[in-house]
């Protein structure tokens, strides 16, 4: 990814766009933050937010006609937030704590003719920048029409307070009889003519049309503003806004800079922020008991109606995105920066490797932002640049290797020389539900006797972990295998396998086993009639056909369904996808915990991995096969199969299927397989967490039995043995009882041990 691609990606995520209120404020006040502060009864905080963007906040906060309210998202849900009223209440309730900073004095002088709101705003902005400002006003005093208002609207002492502040910035006020052309003398480097005050006719006659963006007049160095007519509903705030725009122009003019280059245009309410309002109900605007204004309590109540407009659609639905406490625009930069690091720690590696690649965010985002593509590409780059942490996806890859090696089987059906179809259950169904896999195969053979069997792993772990080259080699191998079987059609039970085959081997006719079964005359089984919440696997997200087939099966079985909002196209990952749980087991756990909380009902799914991941939480979860074949069904409360059992089950399945197909390719028997172990339940859980298989333990103990090499405790009956297996060294603490090994502890590490001069082990 280069800078340009990063910017294009960042632009897709519109979370940083302003909410309607801020976009609709001519001064760009962060009204969302202000209203939120008031909602928390933090009026001092609220005032500070106003003072950040408002010139003369004491006046503006009382006087603003709040054009922002036109753009408030609450408008159609009980009425816009009364932002104007809230501002007035806040500014009256708490004193200013702001320290106004002034830049060092500059030399070029500015004349301000007229002292209406636009002039005062301009004087404020320019004086803060250090420009010497001379304001000419009529004898009634600075403020123009503001001085004629009743006390309930604006007290004179408020005006005078702000004027004092202006004077403290060095603004000089000069009373004159008339505001005429004679004031615009040569000694000034720039002139502002505030038309929201009583100007003399000779001066008025000199004012031509002003530039809409810069407020510049034809005369060089002349600017104007305050053009609103008396009846204008936004007369005050638009004048202030023009004063501010003219101040920007004058500052640029005095520095000899372009008046227009990269100038931020007022938004006039325009924003690309997406705000979901579908779950919001109407809340009526709070009317103040006293028309003069809100009490503090009323203000807080009114502010609490604020929606706190944000997009965050993807973050709200994805535990992973929420975990890292930001949103995709920020994440994109984080990932970009992570790739750019040459020396130093790649802080975002775990972040990149934890996305489940489930693509829910893509569907939810109004701009289809894809965290999955972002993370997958970053992983691929890490692999190519040889900086992918070897431990990140280690266990998933080991599982794949085992399923593609010792547990692989490819065979025509018994007594058949060719295959019309091949059943591809996938490594997870094979490992988690091997007996149901046999049952399913028998059913398929009843439909089409020439159905062969293909036990394998589709290579998802290689693909998910960014090992694209390895994955492509696997795909090539799959193509050859399929050709060697006479190019039959493939019947797949796993959504992930199905998706990877369809995406990478489109020449193969791949169909979901559920689609095939849905087309059969299914006999209605006597199953429970409680509604089940159907959780589609995330890799079925775009597979409308398979999702529909599953629902059609359930209809035929007369199985009622409970609603589950995030399903079908919006479905969620079980935390296994993308090898999330391998990289960050705790996060994977949070994902399933959040998922099962979405329904009170017993859940149902048609992916073996989903079923076991969801069941980790203790939630009752069924697999579709439990409904289809009650004779091999497991209870919904059945705990998840352990990683050790899955390995063993795959080997067993291979043996059963090889025998069933008359193939003398029995799985290899290992010397260590018969070692007898006693493992406490507590240790089983520890082994599961640490990804230590009973196979690993048996291998260590077998090595020990062969060599006698170990470390014995000096006074207690316990021994330690260790072996290097693949990329890790496994340690086992045990005691023996006859031929049985009682396990006490086990652990592993990846570092290898070497003797300082001699070789290692």
């Amino acid at each position: 990814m280069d800078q340009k691609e990063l910017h294009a990606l960042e632009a897709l995520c519109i979370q940083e766009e302003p909410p309607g209120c801020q976009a609709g404020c001519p001064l760009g006040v962060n009204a969302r933050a202000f209203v939120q502060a008031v909602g928390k009864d933090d009026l001092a905080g609220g005032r500070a937010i106003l003072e950040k963007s408002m010139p003369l906040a004491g006046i503006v906060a009382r006087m603003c006609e709040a054009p922002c309210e036109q753009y408030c998202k609450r408008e159609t849900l009980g009425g816009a937030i009364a932002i104007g009223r809230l501002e007035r209440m806040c500014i009256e309730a708490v004193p200013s704590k702001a320290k106004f900073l002034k830049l060092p004095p500059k030399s070029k002088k500015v004349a301000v003719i007229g002292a209406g709101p636009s002039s005062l705003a301009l004087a404020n902005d320019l004086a803060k920048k250090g420009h010497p400002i001379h304001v000419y006003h009529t004898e009634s005093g600075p403020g123009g029409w503001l001085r004629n208002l009743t006390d309930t609207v604006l007290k004179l002492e408020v005006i005078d307070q702000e004027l004092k502040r202006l004077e403290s910035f060095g603004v000089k006020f000069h009373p004159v009889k008339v505001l005429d052309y004679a004031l615009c003398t040569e000694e000034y480097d720039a002139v502002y003519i505030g038309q929201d005050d009583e100007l003399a006719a000779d001066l008025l006659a000199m004012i031509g049309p002003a530039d809409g963006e810069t407020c510049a007049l034809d005369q060089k160095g002349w600017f104007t503003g305050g053009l609103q007519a008396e009846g204008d509903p936004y007369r005050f705030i638009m004048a202030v806004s023009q004063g501010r725009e003219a101040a920007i122009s004058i500052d640029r003019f005095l520095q000899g800079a372009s008046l227009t280059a990269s100038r931020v245009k007022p938004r006039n309410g325009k924003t690309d922020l997406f705000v979901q309002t579908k779950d919001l109900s109407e809340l009526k605007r709070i009317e103040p008991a006293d028309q003069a204004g809100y009490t503090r309590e009323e203000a807080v109540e009114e502010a609490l109606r604020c929606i706190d407009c944000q997009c965050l659609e993807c973050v709200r639905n994805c535990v992973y995105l929420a975990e890292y406490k930001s949103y995709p625009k920020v994440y994109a930069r984080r990932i970009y920066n992570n790739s750019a690091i040459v020396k130093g720690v790649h802080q975002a590696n775990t972040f990149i490797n934890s996305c489940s690649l489930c693509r829910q965010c893509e569907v939810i985002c109004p701009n289809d932002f894809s965290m999955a593509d972002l993370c997958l590409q970053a992983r691929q780059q890490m692999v190519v640049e040889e900086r992918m942490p070897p431990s990140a996806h280690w266990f998933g890859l080991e599982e794949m290797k085992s399923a593609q090696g010792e547990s692989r089987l490819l065979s025509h059906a018994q007594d058949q020389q060719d295959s019309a179809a091949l059943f591809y259950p996938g490594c997870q169904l094979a490992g988690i539900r091997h007996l149901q896999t046999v049952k399913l195969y028998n059913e398929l053979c009843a439909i089409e006797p020439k159905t062969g069997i293909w036990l394998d792993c589709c290579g998802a772990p290689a693909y998910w972990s960014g090992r694209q080259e390895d994955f492509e080699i696997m795909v090539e191998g799959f193509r050859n295998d399929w050709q060697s079987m006479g190019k039959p059609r493939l019947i797949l039970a796993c959504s992930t396998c199905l998706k990877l085959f369809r995406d990478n081997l489109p020449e193969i006719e791949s169909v979901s086993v559920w689609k095939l079964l849905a087309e059969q005359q299914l006999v209605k089984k006597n199953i429970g009639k409680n509604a089940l919440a159907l959780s589609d696997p995330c890799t079925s997200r775009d597979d409308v056909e398979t999702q529909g087939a599953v629902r059609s099966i359930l209809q035929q079985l007369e199985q009622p369904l409970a609603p589950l909002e995030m399903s079908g196209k919006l479905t969620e990952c079980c935390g296994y996808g993308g090898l999330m749980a391998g990289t960050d087991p705790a996060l994977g756990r949070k994902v399933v915990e959040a998922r099962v909380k979405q329904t009170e009902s017993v859940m149902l799914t048609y992916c073996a991995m989903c079923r076991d991941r969801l069941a980790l939480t203790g939630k009752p979860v069924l697999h579709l096969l439990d409904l289809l074949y009650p004779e091999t069904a497991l209870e919904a409360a059945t705990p998840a199969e352990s990683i050790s059992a899955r390995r063993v089950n795959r080997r067993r399945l291979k043996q059963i299927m090889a025998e069933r197909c008359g193939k003398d390719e029995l799985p290899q028997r290992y010397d260590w397989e018969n070692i007898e172990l006693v493992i406490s339940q507590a240790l089983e859980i520890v082994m599961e967490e640490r990804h230590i298989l009973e196979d690993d333990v048996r291998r260590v103990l077998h090595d020990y039995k062969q060599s006698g090499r170990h470390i014995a405790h000096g006074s207690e009956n316990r021994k330690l043995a260790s072996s290097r297996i693949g990329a890790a060294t496994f340690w086992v603490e045990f005691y023996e009882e006859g031929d049985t090994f009682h396990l006490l502890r086990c652990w592993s590490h990846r570092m290898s041990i070497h003797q300082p001069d001699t070789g290692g082990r």
Partner: protein
Amino acid sequence: MDLRFLPEDMNWICQPCGVPLEPGMVELHYVGNVFRVELPVCPQCRQVLIDEELALGKMLEVEKLLEDK
């Protein structure tokens, strides 16, 4: 970098050597990095003990750090 990782319980006997483990220097290697570390070692056959606490504590931490470098 020289580190010391001796478990509290040093009462371990190497078998079949039959001699107690003693503190000794060994090298730990990971993703191209090498550390010299003091660990319980058999003075005769150089068999090394990596304690559970070390493997899952400091060692794991360093492994992760090196992987992200």
